[in-house]
């Protein structure tokens, strides 16, 4: 399916690494013009080194900065079609090990930052419609270990998604979220390598017996961003190798 996003203008936050990098690369390859946003200039440079020239612009900025939406508006070359709210932080601990400040930090980045950009997104899409894809997590739905603040923040993203889909469907703005399982990114690679329990839960006991790759999530983001999903809104698409169905020890077949 060549050049599925030809002529579309997209924003991808957290584009400097991992899932955001894979989404930016795929969207550029599919013909979109992408505004790649990340607070890490080096990561952005790495991402954009993988994209054809003329298909993107970069914006160094932090989603916790209330001025970011204005900076994004100025950097867009035309009407916005697609917003991928991907920037976020992960990990964390049990609730006893989570301070108020830890919780605030997770919410400031994963929820408040995303909320602000989603509000900007609907304002920019009001005339022509568009597609917003929020990166939630399978942790929004499943009680996952040692992630009190993270799981709560992703639950907020999933319900904000459904809420916005209800309000903005009538003017042609679709809002969906993705529920990745454990994806191997620069942020998670060390944890997967160093923490045996993580490998047990997310690989040995997971139905497909592997963690996901950023490309797995990028493919699903492309589906939700494109007109292929024109009749889908308010949904959370799990990209988790079946992990949400429970843990199952290996058995021979």
């Amino acid at each position, binding site marked *: 399916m060549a050049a599925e996003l030809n002529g579309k203008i997209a924003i991808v936050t957290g584009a400097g690494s991992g899932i955001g990098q894979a989404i930016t690369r795929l969207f550029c390859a599919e013909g979109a013009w992408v505004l790649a946003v990340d607070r890490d200039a080096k990561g952005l440079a790495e991402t954009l080194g993988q994209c054809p020239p003329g298909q993107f612009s970069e914006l160094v900025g932090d989603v916790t900065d209330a001025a970011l939406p204005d900076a994004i508006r100025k950097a867009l070359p035309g009407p916005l079609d697609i917003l991928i709210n991907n920037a976020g932080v992960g990990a964390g601990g049990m609730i006893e090990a989570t301070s108020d400040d830890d919780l605030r930090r997770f919410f400031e980045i994963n929820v408040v930052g995303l909320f602000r950009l989603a509000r900007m997104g609907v304002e920019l899409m009001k005339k022509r419609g568009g597609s917003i894809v929020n990166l939630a997590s399978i942790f929004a739905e499943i009680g996952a270990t040692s992630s009190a603040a993270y799981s709560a923040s992703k639950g907020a993203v999933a319900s904000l998604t459904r809420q916005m*889909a209800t309000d903005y*469907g009538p003017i042609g703005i679709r809002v969906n979220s993705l529920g990745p399982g454990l994806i191997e990114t620069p942020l998670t690679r060390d944890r997967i390598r160093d923490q045996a329990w993580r490998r047990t839960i997310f690989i040995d006991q997971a139905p497909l017996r592997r963690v996901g790759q950023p490309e797995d999530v990028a493919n*699903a983001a492309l589906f939700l961003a494109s007109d292929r999903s024109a*009749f889908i*809104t308010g949904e959370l698409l*799990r990209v*988790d*190798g079946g992990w949400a169905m429970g843990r199952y020890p290996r*058995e021979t077949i």
Partner: protein
Amino acid sequence: MAKPIALVTGAAAGIGAAIAERLAADGYRVCIADRAAGPAEATADAIRKAGGDAFAEALDITDEIAQAALLQRLGELDVLVNNAGIFDVKDFFELTADDFRRMYEINTVAMFTLSRNAATRMAKGARIVNIASRAMLGARHYAHYVSSKAAVVGLTRAMALELAPRGISVNAVAPGVIETQMLKARSDTNLDGLRALQPLGRLGVPEDIARTVAFLAAPEADFITGQILLVDGGRSLGGATGI
């Protein structure tokens, strides 16, 4: 390289035909299975005229021997789309055990037997996509259909888990209200009324379902299994006040 083979049941018309057309456009050789041989042949013919690769097979979906024979003729199978199903409207107090049995026999049991027989022939990377329904969430005036589709959801997840070690993914698409001849023929249906309940302001078309099935059938969905994807235009969300 040989084309991957897709089997779509109930593919002579409506959603099934749209799925077959889409998979053919995506490069599959598509087997159009339907109990109605003539319409199945016509759909296959239309796909061939459009440049696709398709052939028709008459199949009574509840006949397990016929299922096995069809799979034998196909040889290899890369994608199975379990779309065949029936629907009818009957109030709760009118429904009989036989209504329930017939509904389950076609919508659920046949899906199970065909999937089991197909999976034994499938290689790593093969896909099964089941057509469930938004009715799995509950609906009025067809409890037998609602529960047969809820059973499809459970079956999908169970198959996803049991077939995961073989590298076969199993997912379901749950369509909302889709404009098909089957829908338009329903006397109890007020299309405008239904449209008013849709956050996206329109009813679905068979192609909406076909595109989603094609996504789940493609290599790009390799990390997705056991998922039930609603394709309902937002119908299952809370009602909007409008802006």
